[in-house]
């Protein structure tokens, strides 16, 4: 038999039995669409949770001076007081490959004034990296410039509450404010936010770390915020930070690095559960799709037993008859899968519009799985009954109508 004849025969069989073909296409399309849409939803939920957690700062490590661990050994005789962390230390830490972002924090309190208005506020000395590490957002202007760590520029970014207190509804950008007796130019205002690292971020002035050290007349850094290069490198980042500090402090481990272990463990648990649910959803929808397709194909081929009998009587070989049904099932599966994918894309698009906060992406593996299942079940359940019919006594097959 010629391949073009096989294709034409299958195509004709599908297009002539329109009701049945549409039913089968619908079954397949719904199956394929269900797999793709449900996995996109599940995966979207997973991504959403993952994003929320990383904005909570799961990648974050905090370094502080001094050892907080209690050791069983006798108290050291020399070097009892821990050495401070300096901006030079911070600069050295920046070179570690495991660390993506690094922000020193210098904290103090000072009166902030503009013209006649004054307010006692928290002053944070930091760098440009703090914006990303703490997920701060600007209402206007810009954040601290990403320049030399040791450069004490007279610049300030104000928290929303502090800006409101000093300027009311007047624009603050470009104005000069006074901290103690030093003058700083306002270059940005933060969006209203809650607390961050235990500080009410609405009521702060953020200035460059070196400026804060000058303001408070200190050489030391209160904390260093470290963001690891990915969640799985948190341990490495911690080890690298400790090693660098030990090296710089004459072999003495006099800093502490805190990771957010409890948060991480919770996150891992939730993430794992969500991954399992996505896999479960995919498996169930694949199964349902398969059974749907199987049923329609079984009915369809059983209805055509007489045709199989006729083809046998006319001298069709078993293999030829199987081939005819295989190609027909393949055509049907392809069309059904294409229709299903269109349906799925439309569905995902619609869901994306109704649930904008969910990052909906169709995972490529789900498309592959859906196609495999529709083709697999379509072919399997198109051919199994056809094979039974082809093996059937043609006399019996012919007399069934």
């Amino acid at each position, binding site marked *: *038999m010629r391949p073009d*004849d096989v294709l034409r*025969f299958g195509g004709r069989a599908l297009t002539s039995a329109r009701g049945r073909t549409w039913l089968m296409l619908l079954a397949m399309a719904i199956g394929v669409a269900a797999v793709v849409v449900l996995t996109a939803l599940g995966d979207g939920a997973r991504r959403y949770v993952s994003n929320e957690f990383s904005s909570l700062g799961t990648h974050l490590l905090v370094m502080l001076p001094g050892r907080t661990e209690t050791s069983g050994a006798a108290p050291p005789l020399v070097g009892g007081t821990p050495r401070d962390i300096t901006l030079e230390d911070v600069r050295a830490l920046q070179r570690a490959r495991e660390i993506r972002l690094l922000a020193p924090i210098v904290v103090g309190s000072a009166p902030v004034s503009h013209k006649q208005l004054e307010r006692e506020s928290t002053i944070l000395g930091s760098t440009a990296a703090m914006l990303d590490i703490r997920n701060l957002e600007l209402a206007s202007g810009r954040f601290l410039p990403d320049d030399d760590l040791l450069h004490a520029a007279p610049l300030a970014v104000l928290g929303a509450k502090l800006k409101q207190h000093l300027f009311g509804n007047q624009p603050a950008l470009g104005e000069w404010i006074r901290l103690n007796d030093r003058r700083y130019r306002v270059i940005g205002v933060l969006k209203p936010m809650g607390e961050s690292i235990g500080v009410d971020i609405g009521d702060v002035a953020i200035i460059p770390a070196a400026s804060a050290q000058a303001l408070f007349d200190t050489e030391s850094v209160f904390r260093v915020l470290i963001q690891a290069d990915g969640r799985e490198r948190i341990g490495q980042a911690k080890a690298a930070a400790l090693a660098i500090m030990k090296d710089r402090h004459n072999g003495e481990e006099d800093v502490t690095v805190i990771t957010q272990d409890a948060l991480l463990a919770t996150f891992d648990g939730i993430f794992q559960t969500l991954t399992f649910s996505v896999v479960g959803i995919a498996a169930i929808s694949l199964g349902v799709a398969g059974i749907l397709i199987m049923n329609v194909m079984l009915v369809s081929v059983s209805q055509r037993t007489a045709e199989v009998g006729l083809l046998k*009587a*006319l*001298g*069709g070989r078993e293999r030829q008859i199987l081939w005819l049904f295989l190609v027909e099932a393949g055509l049907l599966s392809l069309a059904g899968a294409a229709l299903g994918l269109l349906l799925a894309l439309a569905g995902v698009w619609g869901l994306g519009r109704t649930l904008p906060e969910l990052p909906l992406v169709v995972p490529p593996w789900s498309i592959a799985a859906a196609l495999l299942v529709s083709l697999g079940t379509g072919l399997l359940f198109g051919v199994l009954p056809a094979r039974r019919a082809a093996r059937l006594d*043609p006399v019996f097959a012919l007399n069934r109508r």
Partner: protein
Amino acid sequence: MIRLEGIERLFQVGDEQVHALRGVDLTLEAGEYVSLMGPSGSGKSTLLNVLGLLDRPNAGRYWFEGIDTAELAEERRADLRRDRIGFVFQSFHLIGRLTARENVELPLMLAGIAPAERHARASKVLDALGLEDRADHRPDQLSGGQRQRVAIARATILEPALLLADEPTGNLDKHSSADVMRVLEELNQSGLTLVVVTHDPEVGERARRRIHMEDGAIVSG
């Protein structure tokens, strides 16, 4: 051309064994016109299916054009059915979605013959049966007699040696019946061996050789 020796065919129906054919011996010469008659359940259709290589006997031997069919693989039997044997059924067995021409072309398609040649050959056979203006009609647009003539065209397009007709007039009125029988007999006169199963005596009487069956055995002929 055909020789049957001691053909037995048993069917299992529930717990019972039904002896559809018992000890059938039969010889058919090329070009013969034979009717197979008998009451229903006498085994005439079963014998026809054995002759047409659609059914395998449980015992006995069957030579078709000198070939011992018991030793043939299923694929060779399929090829013989396609090339040497034609079937005509009571219920026509035309495929409803295909036109008359496409139905006639089916054996050629199974044989892998190119569309252009198929078209020409089908036209020739349809013309010979007076169906030239019905070639592009689907079976549901044809009368019963026309349908059976399409089925005969399909059965004979590969110029078989043996034509087997199972109650070919069973679903037809008197006029169409006579028409179909005339077509079959013309084919027989051109050299085709014709076997007609019927329980209509009027149809059966037309054959030169009449075989009567009862209880799975040939009683006369």
